[in-house]
């Protein structure tokens, strides 16, 4: 407190500063409470208002469990695919050079910019019943993986790319000249540096995959026990008027989102501590 006072030219400045802090904080907190806090409170209330038993019944119904299992397994598989392919993509973008690299680099962000419903429709155009290449995976679990790969593509690339850019290529060259193989150089030199980036990218991709809805609606056909993921399952319950059941399953997804965010926070914390 004394430090703050010393830095300020005049007393009125300090009190003006405090007023500005209070004002901006008040605005931010109120806005967040009204826009995010209240709706989520209403959701949690609806899920639990009829007692823990009905909450549990909704969450543990066979259809809910099947949907949640599918969601988690598919999201996990897609996260792993992202870890490998995203890292390769980031490496090529940073260390390799070829014509059109700028365009390729820009295209990576396409899934951020393209509406998810359009993503689903485009995948169906190439890998659906009217596929010009003869591959039809529509309304199958493969379609879920494809759609999730589409919408999560940028995450690992964009978290690993800046770390690789900072990493001096000379370290890799030194490892090579000392006789280390490519695999060994990657595992011992590059991987430890980019691992936090990979992990936080994977966590972001996982969060996105668990909640994904738009791209799955068209392409998966939403067959219960077969291709119905949790978000689509929640939507189905809303449509059939079972809003407390929908809320119960939604609270589970909310908890998963919280946990994923928390783990990203922990990863970042460990990574920055490692730097110092």
């Amino acid at each position, binding site marked *: 407190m004394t430090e703050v006072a010393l*830095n300020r030219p005049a007393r009125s400045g300090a009190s*003006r500063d405090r007023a500005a802090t209070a004002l*901006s*904080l008040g605005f*931010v907190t109120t*806005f*967040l409470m009204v*826009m*995010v806090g*209240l*709706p*989520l409170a*209403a*959701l949690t*209330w609806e899920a639990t208002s009829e007692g823990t038993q009905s909450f549990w019944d909704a969450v543990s119904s066979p259809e809910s469990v099947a949907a949640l299992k599918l969601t988690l397994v598919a999201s996990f598989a897609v996260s792993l695919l992202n870890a490998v*392919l995203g890292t*390769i*993509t980031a*490496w*090529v*973008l940073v260390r*390799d050079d*070829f014509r059109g690299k700028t365009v*390729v*680099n*820009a*295209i990576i962000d396409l899934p*951020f*910019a393209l*509406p998810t*419903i359009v993503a689903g*429709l*485009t995948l169906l*155009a190439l890998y659906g019943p009217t596929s010009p290449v003869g591959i039809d995976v529509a309304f199958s679990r493969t379609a879920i993986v494809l759609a999730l*790969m*589409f919408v999560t*593509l940028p995450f690992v690339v964009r978290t690993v790319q800046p770390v690789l850019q900072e990493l001096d290529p000379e370290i890799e060259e030194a490892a*090579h000249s000392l006789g280390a193989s*490519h695999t060994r150089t990657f595992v011992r030199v590059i991987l430890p540096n980019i691992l936090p980036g990979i992990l936080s990218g994977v966590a*972001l991709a996982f*969060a*996105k995959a668990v*909640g994904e*809805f*738009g791209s799955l609606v*068209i392409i998966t056909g939403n067959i219960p026990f077969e291709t119905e993921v949790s*978000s*689509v399952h*929640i*939507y189905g319950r*809303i449509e059939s008027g079972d*809003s407390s059941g929908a*809320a119960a399953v*939604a609270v589970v*997804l909310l908890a998963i*989102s*919280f946990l*994923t*965010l928390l783990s990203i*926070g922990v990863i970042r914390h460990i990574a920055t501590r490692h730097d110092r």
Partner: protein
Amino acid sequence: MKGWLSRLGLRAIMLGYLAVILVGPLAIVFWRTFEDGFAPAWDALTTPETLNALKLTLIITAIAVPVNTIFGIVCALAIVRRRFRGKGLLNAFIDLPLALSPVVVGLSLFLLYGQDGWFGSWLDERGIDVLFALPSMVIATIFVSLPFVAREVVPTLREIGDEQEQAAQTLGASGWQTFWRITLPSIRWAVIYGVILTTARCLGEYGAVAVVSGRLQGQTETATLRVQERYEAFDLAGAYAISIVLALIAMLVLVAMTVIRPKEEAA
């Protein structure tokens, strides 16, 4: 020699991956849409319902983007320049919309503003339509696109430090003057970048709006909802035509991102 080969191999894997997942599907939709020339696509796009849907999407975006821009700047300033307890909590709260399923967002708003919701009867008595009307769709869109401006501005603010701001204040500038003359010019590219991301997210929002809009054709049907409606009505040409418009906007966004990112990093 071996390094050169593995380099080519990795490049091939990466380009193949992008082709299979991203470029291929999009190219097919472009090709299918303009297979029979430009006219059928144009006709499919200019039906009154579709134009209405596009207009609604633009209206929602035009409200949500300024709101989130102001919030994002104030929020970033609070996080970086102010000291207070619970900063970690605020940080986590802001990221939540990024990690949350849009359907969960929609359902939460449905439960808050719906007939049986907390605000439902109060709004109903006063004859204010929120659910299945424009307000809830705007609120849903604001929710899902909330973090983008703040997340872009926070690192830039950290990097530029506050020496110039302090100097300005020592020289007698008011808080407003400091903000407009010093802070805003130095974060402008980050703000613009955030606005572009927010706009893209708003235009493309589907899940949350699908829950709260009620999907009344010609009234609460946005462009993305219209894509699905056309697809389900077996009107692929119609669905593709709107998709192409949205995809072209997405590509404009990519171009803008590519142009602005170096400026943001240089600032």
